[in-house]
């Protein structure tokens, strides 16, 4: 069943955190860097990555600065849009995967904001990362179910035009 869904471009995620755990809250700890780090795994980030406030404010964004591998990063922390949350997914352990009805993905942590960083450029509302959220508005306009009231007002508008 899972494979079939994945083929259709869907991924089933188990949002049940299990009896023993609540998803870890990573708010203010999720960073989007302007580079690809070819590493997956735990790392002592907080001992080395030390964002500081610059005291600068641009486009309503509080500018922070940090250094990574000798490069200066300028960034801002933004809240995720209302109604959305960020999740870190992980594969379930093998033991639980044997359960027939369950999906292989499980929420390991969640976050409500994200700090994105530019290399050597001040953050602004024009940044690609900020602009990607435009999709949410467009998606809503395209996919929100049409209600009877919507149809009625649309047809009234049409009538008025003729």
């Amino acid at each position, binding site marked *: 069943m899972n494979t079939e869904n994945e083929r259709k471009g869907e991924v089933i995620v188990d949002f049940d955190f299990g009896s023993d755990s609540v998803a870890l809250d990573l708010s203010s700890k999720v960073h989007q860097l302007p580079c*690809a780090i070819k590493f997956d795994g735990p790392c*002592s980030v907080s001992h080395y990555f030390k964002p500081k406030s610059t005291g600068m404010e641009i486009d309503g964004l509080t500018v922070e600065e940090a250094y990574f591998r000798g490069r200066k990063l300028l960034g801002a922390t933004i809240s995720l849009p209302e109604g959305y949350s960020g999740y870190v997914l992980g594969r379930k352990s093998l033991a639980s995967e044997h359960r027939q009805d369950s999906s292989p993905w499980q929420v390991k942590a969640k976050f409500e904001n994200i700090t994105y960083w530019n290399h050597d450029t001040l953050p602004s509302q024009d940044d690609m990362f900020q602009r990607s959220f435009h999709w949410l508005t467009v998606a809503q306009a395209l996919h929100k179910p049409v209600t009877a009231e919507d149809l009625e007002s649309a047809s009234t508008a049409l009538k008025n035009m003729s």
Partner: protein
Amino acid sequence: MSSQDPLPKWASKPCVMGIDEAGRGPVLGPMVYGCLYCATSYLIELSSLNFADSKTLREEKREELFEDLKANESIGWAVDVIDPRELSSKMLNKVKINLNEISHDSAMGLVTKVLGMGVLLTEVYVDTVGDSEKYRIKLSEKFPNVKFVVAKKADSLYPVVSGASIVAKVTRDRALREWALEETAENMHRNFGSGYPGDPTTKCWLEDHKHSVFGFPTLVRFSWGTCTSYFKDVVEVLWESDKVDEDGGTAGSGKKQLRLSNVGITTSKRKSEEIESNAKGRCKFFQARKLEQLTHF
């Protein structure tokens, strides 16, 4: 940091200033520009103070001379301490600023500062950085009322520059000695050595503080060629700005710094897609926002 106000009376008479640097070569710690100035009429006496090129003096002697010159009311001084983070980031910026330019800017900053204090500078002696004549023209254009002498080995030729070299060297050594490491990892130590890439103590420190993801603590100048040899087995990091670099070709001066633009990185075009998502084949709205459809992960 500089000698304090109020401005001494002699400063309104014609004054001479020397500028020198310390810590240009080291792979760690700040680079310091220092200057020393006095009335032209004081020059003969200055020569009798035994200022010599700081490199020829022992550390204790330098410290002693620095204390002497600080106490001397006929002498003024100032320093510009350039943080290693600033050196690395400028040299690795999208638009790279090389070390000569950083040095020129620092020296000019000192001249601006001293003139701004109201000191009547008429002559300034500087050690050469890059092409000496080009440097002299650059300085003269910026400060048309000051006569500049740009000379090789100025620190051993002119006592004002020797004095400046002591100011710079002592400040650099103290700054490194008292450096507050930003990183809070365990097992960090402070046996930095001189900071020169060839110094065995420095080599040890670099080896001890290598980190597979972060490279080094920010005390290290990542833009130095020395780092490359330590980065052979660290995690690869690809930057968007290096991709641009390669496409545009960093033409011209194939000097030390440029080679360093790929510190710990092997840049290649095939990798560009791994750095940022592309939205090939999707409509403009998605392409402009680099929104890719992800069906498998």
